[in-house]
């Protein structure tokens, strides 16, 4: 019993790191993703090209590699002057990575709103801002809820990648136990993820249902 409590506590401490990384990434990557999506839809060609290349690189390389780069490259380049703490390195890499993914979801959602919706707003004398906030935004939110939900659930699980730069997150702890010959904490750690993702799934399907008050 003591052992169970002890292991639970250790895993929980680890999961705290996962949750912290999750929350910080989520609240920063969404607004940053919105900004990036604006860039990738810009009519100013150089900006658009730079943004698209950036998104291509981030989405086209493993998050694990990005973690290594953010953590190891700055000190090497600055002769050890500039060093991210492990957690800060993880935060930076995760935010950049997820912002790139979110930006593509946002771009898809915004571009899927028919041109006629903007034009209807225009001929009714609405300003661009009014059209965006009163007409377009809600339709975008409805369209992106499901893909954003998927991405958020992936993020929960991806946080365990932070172990590659030795952040003591839950899987790292569970693995340490298995090295000592205890296998079950590995499965036990899965319960934490399952519960967290379960709650998120319920939350997102509730949101989707709410937004289903209208068709189209």
């Amino acid at each position, binding site marked *: 019993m003591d052992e169970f409590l002890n292991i639970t506590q250790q895993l929980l401490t680890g999961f705290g790191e996962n949750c912290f990384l999750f929350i910080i990434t989520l609240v920063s990557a969404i607004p940053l993703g919105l900004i990036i999506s604006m860039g990738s839809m810009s009519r100013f060609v150089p900006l658009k090209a730079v943004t698209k290349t950036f998104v291509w690189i981030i989405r086209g390389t493993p998050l694990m590699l990005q973690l290594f780069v953010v953590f190891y490259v700055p000190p090497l380049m600055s002769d050890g002057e500039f060093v991210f703490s492990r957690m800060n390195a993880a935060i930076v890499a995760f935010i950049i990575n997820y912002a790139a993914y979110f930006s593509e979801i946002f771009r898809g959602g915004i571009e899927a709103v028919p041109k*006629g919706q903007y034009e209807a*707003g*225009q*001929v009714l*004398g*609405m300003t661009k801002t*009014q059209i965006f906030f009163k007409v377009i935004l809600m*339709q975008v939110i409805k369209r992106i809820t499901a893909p954003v939900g998927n991405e958020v659930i992936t993020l929960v699980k991806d946080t365990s990648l932070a172990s590659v730069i030795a952040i003591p997150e839950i899987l790292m702890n569970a693995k340490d136990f298995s090295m000592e010959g205890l296998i079950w904490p590995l499965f036990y750690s899965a319960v934490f993820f399952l519960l967290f993702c379960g709650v998120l799934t319920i939350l997102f399907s509730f949101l989707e249902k709410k937004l289903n*008050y209208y068709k*189209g």
Partner: protein
Amino acid sequence: MSILNVENIQKSFGKNEVLKNISFSLEKGEVLAIIGSSGSGKTTLLRCLNFLETPDKGRIIVNGETLLDADKNTKRNEKEIRRKRLHFGLVFQSFNLFPQYSVISNISLAPLLMAKEQLKNEGEYMGEKTYRAAAEKIRENVLSLLKKVGLSEKKDEYPGNLSGGQQQRVAIARALALDPDVLCFDEPTSALDPELTGEVLNVIRGLKSSDSTMIVVTHEIEFARDVADKIIFMDSGVIAEEGTPQEVIINPKNPRTREFLARFNQNFS
């Protein structure tokens, strides 16, 4: 004085000259029907009037006020364009209702935003001094418009739950809510099943009797003949023939008009 004067409008997309030299005028309360084959520039003309496209040349004059003079390179800021386009209303072929708003909100959205803005800037909206009073006035107007288009019962429905004909009638009410000087229709029935066109055309007929000035682009030749005071036949960017329904539809002079109408008669018989 004519309510609308269109003078020498020209518009090209790249090398494609879509409107070559369009001029016409319209008196208050008149209904103008525009007919013509696909690609002749009918939609582009309506879009120019509604400032969705900017003509390369020409002038648009409403009630004696020059809204657009393409030769004078006036700065076109958003605010000016918004004010000017309110002289016109546009009903789209594909309705373009806002799916997330109920019927009543679709119609009142723009007037409410307008009221808020005017109250802030001028302290008054149509004689009302508070947003509450303005909103009440707008609501009354919207309800009477819904009655006019025969959709009072559907006021709390969402567009997705309405038939095409009902959606188009909501779109007409939405355009009327801003009380435009000239209401334009771009093939208002061509996205509808044949059995639904009648209800929309009847609403437009009803508007004629309440003295609205309208421009209707349509392929419904019979409707044009019965309702229009004036008909324009457009052919590859020019007005090929213009006159009363009697002149253009019954006794067309231009061989192109005859050819076009013959194709329609074939479809009918």
